[in-house]
């Protein structure tokens, strides 16, 4: 926040995309589970996967203003694509991610033509409908998906034939975290590109964009497809590291949860989904340990409290605090 000093336009742009110390600290902290909490690596793996899923939602919701209540569709398609590839004899994990990316990206591209035509409430209904549609389709196609019993017989090979997926989640968390970090780097680059600026323009005032000559729908189609690909990769990571795929990957609950996590962490900040996923899932783990039957009560309380006290999510609150304390963030 050094905007007070009149910097040149190029300095200003460069300053916007500079890596902050807090970012470096964040990524170093993601390595902590290996050292201090090896018994929580399985949970850490789930968090990393969900964080990637939330990052993908942030690209469309937080940066482009496209509301979705059916984002699990792409997560689920990615999970089934990787799971089926493995079941049919191809358990190589990295190419599994690629297959999932392709499948989810294709679905994302096709549906983006509908998405780009609508906004706000209509979008909520359409994405919700799409999610329900897909889950029922997967349920009825039990010859393919295993239906209610889930997809059986997935076996994920070792990474590079070196790193075997162990019971404690060392490899799983390392693998998911690497994927999260690499895709985060791509997303970060995207956000600070001319395209990223155009997306923020759509979020800020989609009606105004055509009047400055912006091909708004084309931009929306592109980012929606990219977000679908990332969601698909997240789904594939889950299928590969847990070696199961159940109908739940396509479920409404998953779409709603990821939305909640993103809002909890703070939308449009790249890290919001990551922090939201970590807070939400750790809280859920702790609450369900305390009180296995009523843990959603505490989650509900947490949500209301956060939104009331921190309307821009945890990160919004933190950046406000940083500004108050005049600490460079």
């Amino acid at each position: 926040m050094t905007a007070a000093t009149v910097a040149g336009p190029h300095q200003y742009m460069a300053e916007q995309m500079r890596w902050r110390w807090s970012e470096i600290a964040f990524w170093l902290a993601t390595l902590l589970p290996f050292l201090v909490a090896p018994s929580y690596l399985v949970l850490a793996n789930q968090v990393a996967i969900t964080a990637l899923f939330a990052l993908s939602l942030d690209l469309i919701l937080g940066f482009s203003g496209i509301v979705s209540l059916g984002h699990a569709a792409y997560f689920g398609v990615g999970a089934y694509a990787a799971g089926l590839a493995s079941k049919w004899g191809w358990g190589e994990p990295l190419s599994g991610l690629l297959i999932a990316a392709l499948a989810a990206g294709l679905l994302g591209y096709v549906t983006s033509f509908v998405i780009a035509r609508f906004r706000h409430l209509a979008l909520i209904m359409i994405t919700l409908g799409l999610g329900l549609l897909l889950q029922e389709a997967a349920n009825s196609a039990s010859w393919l998906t295993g239906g209610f019993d889930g997809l059986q017989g997935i076996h994920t090979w070792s990474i590079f034939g070196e790193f075997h997926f162990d019971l404690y989640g060392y490899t799983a968390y390392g693998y998911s975290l690497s994927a999260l970090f690499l895709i985060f780097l791509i997303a970060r680059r995207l956000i600070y590109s001319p395209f990223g600026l155009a997306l923020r323009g759509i979020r800020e005032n989609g009606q105004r964009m055509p009047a400055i000559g912006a091909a708004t729908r084309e931009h929306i189609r592109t980012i929606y497809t990219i977000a679908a690909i990332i969601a698909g990769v997240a789904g594939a990571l889950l299928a590969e590291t847990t070696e199961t795929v159940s109908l739940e990957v396509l479920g409404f609950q998953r779409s709603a949860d990821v939305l909640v996590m993103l809002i909890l962490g703070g939308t449009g900040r790249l890290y919001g989904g990551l922090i939201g996923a970590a807070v939400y899932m750790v809280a859920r783990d702790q609450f369900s340990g305390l009180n296995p039957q009523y843990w959603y009560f505490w989650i509900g309380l947490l949500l209301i409290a956060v939104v009331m006290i921190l309307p821009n999510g945890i990160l919004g609150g933190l950046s406000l605090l940083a500004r108050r304390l005049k600490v460079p963030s």
Partner: protein
Amino acid sequence: MSENALAARGVNKSFGSLVVAADVEINLPQGVRYALIGPNGAGKTTLINLMTGMLRPDAGHIFLGDEDITALPPEQRVWRGLVRTFQINSLFPHLTALESVTLAVCERRRVARTWWRPLTAYRSEVDEAYEILSSLMLAPVSHRLTRELAYGQQRLLEIALALATRPKVLLLDEPAAGVPRDESQELFTAIAGLSRDITVLFIEHDMELVFRFASRVIVMVGGRVLVEGTPQEIASDPQVRAVYLGKATGKADHG
């Protein structure tokens, strides 16, 4: 027809029984400064909406130069040089002034699709945006968020966004709406200083500004073009006096 930068031919539009444009004929020659005046509800903003593609006419055609653009979507009209501003600020609240104008420059240069190169690599786009802001005296606030700018500065940013698209024809919907009088003079001085290659049409209620900055005036009443002429002709036209100038002049309203 080719000497006209923008033309409307027999344009009609109604919402139900309300006629907002009736056989509108307009010819804007290259480089002229036009004022569009008329009482509340005369259809001035509607005409801008029709010409820029925000509304589709029920009948009639819009020509940009020799090209019939009636069927083109708004952004494609912008690419061809027909650009507008809005009466009520329609900006990007959480983008800085520099980011907003850079965005418009990037869209014009067709680089807004690239997502694998950082903005810092687009130095000439950023330079151009900064130059436009400087030309409108916005350079000192270029790093401020739009929503933190003073109202008059936001009005200037509207014009900056339009200029970033390199317009051939610029339609300004009450560029000085809500701006204090002394500032609105400044704003119109900036508009008057625009390149003579740009044809300008502005809606304005302040007759003093109209007579000072327009070379020709179009008067609209009830969705129709009542009369067109030089400011002197308009001032002495009995019809115009009857429907428009006879009423309280110079008072800003929201038509």
